[in-house]
């Protein structure tokens, strides 16, 4: 097992292994640091950041659905300055890449966030243009190819950092959106963010979530996520970080075969805090069993005749 090369090179951003954790599901690493050795992750996508502190949406913020969950956290976060001062030093101890997930209400806000993070220890920026839980326009950015192109280009010009654009699945044609991000200057694409969903309490005749709608994540969305990763991988040349419902090694391998160069685990952390390590071992076993030397050998290797 030790002879297998698990590292992946996302066109400049080298991860020691393809297993990363999805933004918003892993806080700033501290909490799950009690369960897993953070040094063993490929990268940590931190909780979505905004320029100023955000308190987020009222509760309930979570609803369970069949093999999925809805959340409406609404980007609660301490703001980028507090992140840099209080969280980044902790995260910088680990030789795991740190990816800052940034969220703006306007293109300008995205650019300011990118600038602010440019000379910090973060290894990459993940432009979240797809959060369904902020009213002011997060969604609008991610659903229109022209807007995706514009925001990506502006942020690209604001920072020399490695730039990942995180796509929304709530679109007509994911390939079109992926191309827009690529042409805007993204180094990498990550997808999917949550699908938009709703759940109703029939006794109270109200939505379960205080905010009404929320983002659907977890195993339920895996088939949609996998299809979108496959389509995006066909559409662009830049590398892809795939996510959406990954709960075990088999799921992760499906995404790699479909064309993702790395994967993120989100909701599954909540159920099994050791899941990332189990996925690591499972991928290594699979590669060994199938006679591969490197995880790179299976990326995009789906046969489709």
């Amino acid at each position, binding site marked *: 097992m030790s002879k297998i090369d698990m590292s992946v090179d996302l066109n400049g951003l080298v991860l020691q292994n393809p297993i990363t954790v999805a933004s918003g599901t892993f806080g700033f690493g501290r*909490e799950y640091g009690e369960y897993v050795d953070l040094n063993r992750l490929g990268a940590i996508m931190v909780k979505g950041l905004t320029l100023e502190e955000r308190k*987020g949406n009222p509760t309930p913020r979570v609803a369970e659905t069949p093999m999925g969950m809805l*959340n409406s956290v609404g980007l*609660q976060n301490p703001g980028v300055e507090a992140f840099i001062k209080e969280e980044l030093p902790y995260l910088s101890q680990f030789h795991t890449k740190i990816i800052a997930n940034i969220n703006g209400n306007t293109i300008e806000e995205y650019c300011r966030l990118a600038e602010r993070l440019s000379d910090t220890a973060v290894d990459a920026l993940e432009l979240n243009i797809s959060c369904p839980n902020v009213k002011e326009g997060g969604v609008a950015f991610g659903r229109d190819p022209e807007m995706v192109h514009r925001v990506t280009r502006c942020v690209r010009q604001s920072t020399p950092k490695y730039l990942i654009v995180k796509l929304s699945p709530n679109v007509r044609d994911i390939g079109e959106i992926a191309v827009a991000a690529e042409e805007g200057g993204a180094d990498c694409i990550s997808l999917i963010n949550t699908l938009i969903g709703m759940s109703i309490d029939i006794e109270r005749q109200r939505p379960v979530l205080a905010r009404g709608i929320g983002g659907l994540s977890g195993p339920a969305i895996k088939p949609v996520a996998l299809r979108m990763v496959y389509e995006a991988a066909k559409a662009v040349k830049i590398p892809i970080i795939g996510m959406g419902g990954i709960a075990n090694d088999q799921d992760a391998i499906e995404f790699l075969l479909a064309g993702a160069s790395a994967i993120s685990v989100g909701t599954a952390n909540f159920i099994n805090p050791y899941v990332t390590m189990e996925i690591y071992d499972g991928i290594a076993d699979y590669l060994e069993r199938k006679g591969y030397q490197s995880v790179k050998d299976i990326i995009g290797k789906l046969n489709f005749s």
Partner: protein
Amino acid sequence: MQERKICQIIETQCIGPDVYKIVIEKPQGWENIRPGQFFHIRAGEDWYPLLRRPISVCEIQGIGISFVVRKSGKGTELLCSRKPGESLDLLGPLGNGFTIEGEKVILVGGGIGTAPLLELCRIFKDKDVTVLLGFRAEPYLVEVFQRYSHHVKVATEDGSVGYKGYVTTLLEEELAKRSMDMIYACGPEVMLKEVQRISRRYGVKSQLAMEERMACGVGACLVCSCKVKAGEGWDYVRTCKEGPVFSGDEVMFDE
């Protein structure tokens, strides 16, 4: 030390209307569990239902940890149907738990919210501990509380046992009689809100065990926010991490 452990169920027993006691074998490493802390439990053996369910520690006995669970949906129904010999996947102990403080204390529990007070009661058993338990109808756990306290009073909404009415009325009566060092409360939100009001009125400190829907249970996902006072304003803190027990001073209930 927080950890995920797979433990054996050693007992499952129905102890009240839709209420079950589940005892698991206490594994090594979980020596310092405090009352008010909870475990995040997988209801089934598979990933369905998806999320873990937060369940408070009820009692810590030599070799076992007991939980008392009320069937209130798919997850708790499944949990209550699990059999001795089967294994249970627990994450914990989580949250802060009650702070043990005071010589004269009063415990106020409502419904299934009585369960998390039992271990607390045991800890206070040699002090002056009054226990007020409120139920809609048929009470449960009462005799167990009586083992640790001579002052156990019951209120039921239908009047079938004890005082007919709310447990908070009993609280007000007690505080009117004599002062207390601390009120510990666990129960439905309306009850906690009333406890807060009463504790302020009588100037008695309180600790409230709050409930909020959770996903991770460990402080990473931020879905379980509880509104607390912060300086002039307010802040959202994590029920699973900063809570579930909060000082009655700080919790801000919605209007």
